[in-house]
C-alpha cells in the first residue's frame, strides 16, 4: 500500500489484526447497510470475546446474528436487540452481556468518540434506568445526563461507493450509523458496493472523508430485507 491507496484485495487483509477481546463498532440499522462480508470474515476468523457496538444484533442467520451463533460475542452495546431467538437464549443464560443505550445517544457516542469529545450532556434518559450511576446536571433549568463517548479497536462499515483514498458515500437509508462508525475505529474498514477512482466522487458530496478510513474492500451483498412492507 503506497500513498493513499487503501484498497485491499482479500477479506483476510481487511480484518487483519482483529484479536480476541477487541471492541468492534459496526454500521447498519437492522439488516440495512451492514458490512456483510466483513461480518462473515469475523465468523471465519473465529475471533472470540468480542464487544460489538451496533444499534442492533441482526437476526438468527444474518447480520451480527451469525456471530452469536458461534458464541463470538461477549457483549453488545445496542439500542434494540432480541430480533432473534439465540440472542434471547444467550442473554437469559447469562452468556451475553447487553448494555442498552438509547439510539440517539448511541449515535452521538460514536460521533463523539471519533471527534475527540470524551463526554457530553444529553437530556435523553434522565430519570430512567439509563441514567443510573451517571452524573446529572442542570443547564438552563433542565436536567441532563453525562454520557461518555465510544471508540473501537475496529470499525466495520458498508459504503455504496468508496474511492481508493477511502472517501465514501452511502446509499439512501443504508447510511444510518455507518458515517459515525467510520470515524470511531482505530482501524476503520470499509466494504463498498463499488470502488471508484479518486475524483469520481464530488468533494462536497462525500459523506465520509478518507482520513477516517484505513482499508477499503470490494464487497458483494445479499441485502436481505427484514420487514417487507408493500403499498396496499
Amino acid at each position, binding site marked *: 500500500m503506497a500513498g493513499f491507496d487503501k484498497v485491499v484485495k482479500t477479506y483476510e487483509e481487511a480484518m487483519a489484526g482483529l484479536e480476541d477481546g477487541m471492541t468492534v463498532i459496526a454500521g447498519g*440499522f437492522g439488516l440495512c447497510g451492514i458490512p456483510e462480508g466483513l461480518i462473515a470474515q469475523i465468523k471465519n476468523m473465529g475471533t472470540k470475546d468480542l464487544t460489538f457496538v451496533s444499534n442492533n444484533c441482526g437476526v438468527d442467520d444474518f447480520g451480527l446474528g451469525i456471530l452469536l451463533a458461534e458464541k463470538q460475542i461477549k457483549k453488545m452495546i445496542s439500542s434494540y436487540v432480541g430480533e432473534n431467538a439465540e440472542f434471547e437464549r444467550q442473554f437469559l443464560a447469562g452468556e451475553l452481556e447487553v448494555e442498552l443505550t438509547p439510539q440517539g445517544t448511541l449515535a452521538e457516542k460514536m460521533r463523539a468518540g471519533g471527534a475527540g469529545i470524551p463526554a457530553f450532556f444529553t437530556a435523553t434518559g434522565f430519570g430512567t434506568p439509563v441514567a443510573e450511576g451517571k452524573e446529572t446536571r442542570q443547564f438552563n433549568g433542565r436536567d441532563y445526563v453525562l454520557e461518555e463517548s465510544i471508540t473501537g479497536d475496529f470499525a466495520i462499515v458498508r459504503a455504496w461507493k468508496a474511492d481508493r483514498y477511502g472517501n465514501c458515500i452511502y446509499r439512501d*437509508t*443504508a447510511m444510518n450509523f455507518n*458515517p459515525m462508525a467510520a470515524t470511531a475505529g482505530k482501524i476503520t474498514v470499509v466494504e463498498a458496493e463499488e470502488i471508484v477512482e479518486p475524483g469520481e466522487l464530488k468533494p462536497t458530496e462525500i459523506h465520509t472523508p478518507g482520513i477516517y478510513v484505513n482499508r477499503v474492500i470490494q464487497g458483494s451483498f445479499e441485502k436481505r430485507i427484514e*420487514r417487507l412492507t*408493500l403499498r396496499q
Partner: protein
Amino acid sequence: MALTREQIAMRVARELQDGFYVNLGIGIPTLVANYVPSGMEVMLQSENGLLGMGPYPTEAQVDADMINAGKETVTAVTGAAIFSSAESFAMIRGGHVDLTVLGAFEVDVSGNIASYMIPGKLVKGMGGAMDLVAGAQNIVVTMTHADKHGNSKLLEQCTLPLTGVNCINKIVTDLAVIEIKDGAFHLIERAPGVSVEEIQQKTAGKLVVSGEVPEMAFD
C-alpha cells in the same frame, strides 16, 4: 363506545398543523399518516435518518436500502432528505421535530412515561424512544386507557421503569383525550357514548374535570 385504533389515529391527526415535522412511532401512531387533513402538509421524520418518509413501496419500488425506523420498506417523498442517525437524533434532541406520537405502557400525572421495559420479560431495548420523548416539542401518547385486565394505565406514578420524565402533555386513549398539567390529568374530550364516570373510574391518577366535557365527533 371506545375508539377503534383508526379513530384514535384520526383524533391524533387533529393535533397536526400545516408545516409540521412529525415522528410517528410503531403501531397506532403509524396510522396517523392516513388521516392528515386535506389541504394540510406534514413531513414525516424517521429516526434512522429520513426526513420526508413516503408510503410503502410498490413491489417494483422495493429497495433494501430504503427503510424506516420500524425496519419496514418505505419510499421517500419529493423533497426528502436522507442523513446519518447522528444527524437524525441531532434534529430530534435539538427540538426541531414539531410533534412525536408514540405508544406507552403507562403515563402518570407528572408527565412521566414508561414504554420500553416490563421487568421479568426480556428487555429488547428502548430504540429511539428515550431520545424522542426527551427531544420533541410536543408529544402525544396513544394507548388504551386500561389494560386488558381493566387496570388503568394513567397513574399517579408510573410503576415500570421510565422512558422519560416530565415530558408528556397529551394522551389520546380509546376513551378520552387527556392533557397533563399542574400534576394532574385534565379531561378534554371523551369518546362518543363514554361517560365521564367511566373515564374517572379507569383513571388511577388524579383527574380534573372542568365543566361540560365535549364528546369527540367522527365523520
